[in-house]
């Protein structure tokens, strides 16, 4: 990918200064060393046999399901929200944008408490739901998905909103002058231009969902086969057998790196 202009520029610019190289190397070491230690510490002998146990298969299934549905929910609900925030002028837009970003800085356990107070069986919305339909959300896989979506959606919305704003409104205006209505413009012009943001946001949301722990265990609980995800299983095993917990962490890491690697090519080659 290196062009001639790049190489020439590099010669003129000189060697990278130590003041940038040293902190950069420290940052890289901080990120890489713990992961390498985890790989080295993993009892690989028990890796495959552990992978086949019912508890791990259940947790992997719930994690995969929850993260996939979370990305879907982000695409279907988060994209319109990002579009509203980027393109429509309405009162309280700045406030709404701030509110959307709050789950980013909220400790996940607090997110779980917030979800309980809204959707728990005695919650603001949850009690109405229970009285009218008899449905209670906590302790269900649906609750896991809701918790994951709550913590992941901000990543998606901010990423897509950024992309929408970066691509600007000019193309929308051109499409409109050529006779396209707003929905057609969104479908044919706005969304394709924002695609890198949509993909990046999806990957971010998916990754956040994969590691989600605090909100899930607080709101949805922890039961094998219905609400137990890989991170909750890892935390639980950490209490009894750190070796198993380490192997489980490895499984989660291998799976996520594999999916990321598979997505990466597509993602990076898209304009």
């Amino acid at each position, binding site marked *: 990918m290196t062009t001639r202009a790049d190489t020439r520029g590099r010669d003129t610019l000189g060697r990278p200064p130590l003041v940038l190289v040293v902190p950069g190397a420290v940052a890289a070491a901080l990120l890489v060393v713990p992961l390498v230690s985890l790989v080295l510490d993993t009892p690989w002998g028990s890796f495959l046999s552990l992978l086949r146990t019912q508890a791990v298969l259940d947790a992997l299934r719930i994690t995969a399901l929850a993260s996939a549905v979370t990305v879907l929910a982000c695409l279907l609900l988060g994209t319109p929200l990002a579009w509203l925030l980027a393109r429509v002028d309405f009162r309280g837009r700045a406030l709404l944008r701030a509110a959307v970003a709050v789950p980013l800085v909220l400790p996940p356990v607090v997110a779980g408490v917030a979800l309980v107070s809204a959707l728990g069986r005695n919650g603001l919305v949850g009690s109405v739901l229970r009285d009218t339909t008899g449905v209670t959300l906590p302790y269900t896989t649906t609750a896991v998905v809701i918790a994951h979506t709550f913590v992941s959606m901000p990543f998606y919305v*901010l990423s897509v909103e950024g992309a929408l*704003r970066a691509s600007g409104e000019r193309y929308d205006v051109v499409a409109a002058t050529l006779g396209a209505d707003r929905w057609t413009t969104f479908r044919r012009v706005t969304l394709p231009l924002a695609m890198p943001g949509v993909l990046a946001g999806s990957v971010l949301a998916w990754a956040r969902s994969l590691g989600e722990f605090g909100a899930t*265990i607080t709101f949805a*609980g922890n*039961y094998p086969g219905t609400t137990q995800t890989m991170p909750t299983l890892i935390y*639980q095993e950490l209490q*009894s057998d750190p070796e198993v917990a380490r192997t489980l962490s490895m499984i989660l890491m291998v799976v996520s790196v594999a999916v990321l690697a598979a997505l990466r090519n597509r993602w990076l080659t898209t304009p």
Partner: protein
Amino acid sequence: MKPKLTLPLALSLVGLVLPLAACGGGDGASGSSDRTITVLGAASLTGTFTDLAAQFEKDHPGVDVKLAFDSSATLAQQAVDGAPADVLATADTETMDSAKSALANAPQDFATNTMVLVTPKDDPAGISRFSDINRSGVTYVACVDTAPCGKVAAALMSDNKVTSKPASLEVDVKSVLAKVTSNEADAGFVYATDAVAAGDQVRTLSIPHATDEITTYPIAPLTQSKESGLAQQFVDLVLSDQGQQALQDAGFGKP
């Protein structure tokens, strides 16, 4: 794109700085003492050990007792990993054994605990005796069986031939209690001491065969202690009549 990121960035900065500011305030208050011991205690000891630590500080002017409460397994692991602490008290003998390499002396049993069933104060599911948790539609929670409280709950469920399944397996007993006090569960398996601590927020029912599954609490000073004398004195306080009285007031049984 840059200006659009300012708001989330500013918010995240506020989020990062606030907890730091809070920490700073807390540290300043206890900074005057020159000697410190750190006690690692099982979560169920929170109330009693907080009181005993205050007593200990009163008896030993200039000594600051720091307390860390967590699940026994987590604390035992921290002790083995060399956490800067002086005393370890766990909620079962098994986790204490797992920390054997970090113990300065043989652990001594100082309390026992039994398991009870608690329901929210207004008892939404109408539970009048233990076997009612078998009724369909009753949502109950217990600890996961990798935690000591979960081992006892699982044993009691099998002793009593419970046929229904818990809605959730919580990682520690405080989470079980929280699910019940917040009325998100109809019943929960907690220790007698948790039921005492929750006061009139919960109704307490005894569990048949609970006396067959008593948990014993051991305490021991740690090898990494830099104040081994004070550490032993804290252990002695817990074992003293005064300490035992405080434990019994909190619902613990005698060792």
